């Protein structure tokens, strides 16, 4: 027996991991890693990858099992005690519906995407990290389903989340985002999800939903959030390591990576519009405004990040200034869209109360009173007169982000922004310069988009009437859709509150 050296964590991890790969000789390397080169990324030396976690598989099992035991204990307790009756208000549940139908399937896509990258990136370190992230993303999808399963037992809008994700018009926004990443090459996927999404934008997605849960008495979801927090930190670290590694490996990588950062920033910004309206309009107890969140998490934190990355020649994403200016308008315009199309949404809508409008005036002194308050006050008046406004025309969608074309021109909030491009004799429409640039960069890809409105018109969505399309969505009219007031959700909630008052009285 040799004398035993004490091993540090780093050294031990390196010994157990680094040498696992080998130079194949019975199959060409290009057959084993067929997607490593087509994107043009050049890697001189994979051994320069410094693994940021040094997590062996046994430690992974151990840490994750501990977290799962604690999380499921809380979920069981929440269900046993009917924790949903402790929510701030029944309206809150609609944020959770948006999460399960829009975000959970995206977590699942991330799981499969990281399995792809975890097989195909030719370097042991990043491959293991990607595989662990693939497992983590599966965890998030499955634990979210388990967390919200209890809500599904009581509230509408959750029951067909998977079916709806493949069909419902606004869910094609997150779905097309992830389909886009999944169909990109492995390095682009890594930058799109690992860097742009997880690193730059996670604080604007994950944090608002989880903080919203905390502020509104949703103990189950916030416990999931705390439990996933250490996974998310790992994912953020991986995202930043990957971008630095690519930029350090070869100067030719810079323009490619820059193009991806520009594209995925804008794609991500568009998806986050759903979060913006959730924060400003859907949470009964609000955390902060979208504008404030954008200032803290993008302008300040993102600014510091891109200042740090400037040494590699990387500049902040194109149109970041446009996105910052849009923060004044985004949530109001999105909520207006959903209010008008409440008949086709799988969650409930409402108009902001006078108190909420005052909050919005305070948070948006430059835009709310001038442009949005009058609209909401008019709609409130129409409701009082029994003429609640529904938009029964199908909206034109942006070919890239797939959001109805309701956004306004930069610097002119009274004019809708339209852009278009020609490709092979067809005209494609966009909501912004950011989306038009993305299309023009890869017209072959985006001309394939499955646009929900086009599909309805082409007869691919169950029929020509609203009833037929909703049936095809498996959306229960009168229960899943329409306003919160008068919904079965609200009626049940009111009954619970009366029961509670009687018990307390």
């Amino acid at each position, binding site marked *: 027996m*040799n004398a*035993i*050296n004490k*091993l540090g964590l780093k050294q*031990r991890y390196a*010994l*157990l*991991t680094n*040498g*696992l790969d080998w130079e194949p*000789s*019975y*199959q060409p390397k290009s057959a084993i890693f067929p*997607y490593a080169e*087509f994107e043009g990324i050049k890697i001189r030396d994979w051994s320069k990858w410094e693994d940021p976690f040094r997590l*062996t*598989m*046994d430690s*992974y*099992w151990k840490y*994750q*099992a501990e977290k799962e*035991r604690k999380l499921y204990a809380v979920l069981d307790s929440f269900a046993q*005690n*009917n924790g949903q*009756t402790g929510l701030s208000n029944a309206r809150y549940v609609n944020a959770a519906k948006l999460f399960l139908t829009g975000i959970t399937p995206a977590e699942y896509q991330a*799981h*499969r995407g990281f*399995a792809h990258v*975890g*097989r*195909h990136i030719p370097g042991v370190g990043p491959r*293991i990290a990607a595989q662990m992230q*693939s*497992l983590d993303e*599966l965890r998030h*999808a*499955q*634990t979210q*389903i*388990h967390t919200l399963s209890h809500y599904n*037992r*009581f509230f*509408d809008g*959750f*029951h067909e989340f*998977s079916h709806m994700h*493949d069909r419902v018009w606004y869910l*094609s926004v997150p779905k*097309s985002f992830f*389909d*886009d990443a999944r*169909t990109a090459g*492995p390095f682009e996927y890594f930058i799109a999800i690992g860097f742009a999404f997880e690193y730059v934008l996670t604080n604007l997605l994950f944090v608002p939903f989880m903080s919203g849960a905390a502020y509104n008495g949703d103990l189950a979801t916030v416990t999931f959030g705390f439990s996933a927090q250490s996974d998310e930190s790992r994912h953020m670290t991986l995202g930043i390591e990957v971008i630095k590694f690519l930029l350090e490996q070869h100067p030719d990588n810079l323009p490619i990576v820059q193009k991806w950062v520009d594209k995925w920033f804008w794609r991500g910004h568009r998806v986050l519009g759903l979060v913006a309206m959730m924060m400003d309009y859907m949470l009964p107890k609000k955390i902060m405004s979208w504008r404030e969140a954008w200032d803290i998490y993008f302008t300040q934190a993102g600014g510091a990040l891109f200042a740090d990355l400037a040494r590699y020649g990387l500049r902040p994403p194109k149109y970041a200034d446009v996105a910052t200016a849009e923060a004044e308008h985004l949530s109001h315009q999105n909520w207006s869209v959903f209010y008008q199309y409440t008949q086709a949404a799988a969650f409930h809508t409402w108009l902001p109360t006078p108190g909420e409008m005052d909050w919005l005036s305070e948070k948006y002194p430059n835009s709310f009173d001038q442009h949005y308050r009058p609209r909401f006050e008019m709609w409130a008046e129409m409701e009082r007169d029994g003429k609640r406004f529904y938009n029964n025309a199908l909206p034109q969608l942006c070919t890239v982000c797939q959001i109805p074309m309701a956004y306004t021109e930069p610097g002119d909030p009274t004019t809708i922004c339209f852009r278009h491009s020609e490709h092979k004799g067809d005209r494609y429409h966009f909501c912004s310069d950011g989306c038009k640039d993305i299309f023009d960069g890869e017209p072959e*890809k985006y001309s*394939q988009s*499955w646009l929900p409105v086009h599909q309805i018109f082409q007869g691919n969505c169950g029929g020509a009437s609203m009833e037929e399309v909703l049936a095809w969505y498996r959306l229960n009219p009168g229960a899943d859709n329409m306003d919160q007031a008068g919904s*079965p959700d609200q009626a049940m909630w009111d009954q*619970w509150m009366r*029961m509670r008052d009687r018990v307390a009285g």
Partner: protein
Amino acid sequence: MTIEIKTLKVEPRRQTFGHVARRLGADKPASRYDEATMDVQATANFHYKPLWDAEFWHYDERRTAIRMRDWYALRDPRQFYYASYNIARAAQHQGTERNFDFVEKRGLLALLDPAWRETVEGYLLPLRHMEWGANMNCANMCDRGYGTAVTAPAMFAAGDHLGMAQIVGRIGLALDGNSGASLDAAKQRWMEAPDWQELRRLTEDSLVIGDWFEQFVAQHLAIDGMLYPLVYGRFDAAGQALGGTAVSMLTGFMTEWHAEHGRWVDAVVKTAAAESAENRALLGGWLGAWSRRAAAAFAPLAAAVLGPEAGADAIAETAAAIRARAVRLGLDPLAA
């Protein structure tokens, strides 16, 4: 005497999600496995063809020649979802950890007969590379497979193979006093030693199998079906008289894992075979071809470890076990 805590009585409006209820045939309480697994993967209305393989959608049933009316028929009898998987593996590895402690504290590896110790280094340590190949194959099955029922356990298996590669690595470090020299030597064997070349060829060839279900059969039934019984069964048994008990303790995870993992593999193959004669023919053809290759590839190593006669006997016995398993799974009898 019973006590009753007063709570607010609230009645649920439904028991589970619509897609789960349709599978259960009624709206009734569903298991966590069902809710976490059934119909979770997207199936329709994809937006773009992959830049890396424009022939298919990123989730596409046609990536394999196997046809299933319902891919969620391929249920995992262990009912693993993320939490139950990690909790099971953490508990299992706790046993391995205790064994490492026990073996290291008592210096049990020093009791290995010197010649057998060399044999163990020769047959065991290069397997970390084969485990790594298996890891890549399992990640690929998750990447290209169809339906969460089969792809989620594939990713769990990828984690398992990485874990086992690292257990083998730790045994190397325990043998070489943490210098890593034994792992370097093992890699050299893997790359150059004649006994290992057909195994490396087998592994590299398995990495480029285009049909993920064929890869499933090649890896889980043919390669694993040969490797685990041979190495952790026959080789291990041969070492018992030569002080090899410590090695058995440190590799107990693999034996236990292979038995449990086999329950999943069997359920998947059996269900797919029962679906149609075409599936049965494909599965049988793949298993026949890959298991013959695996037997031939392991033969030199078995001869080196057990001697020519016992080696050939062990290969024949393991190959016969695979043929018997094929019959149990409803496949046509494989040629010997």
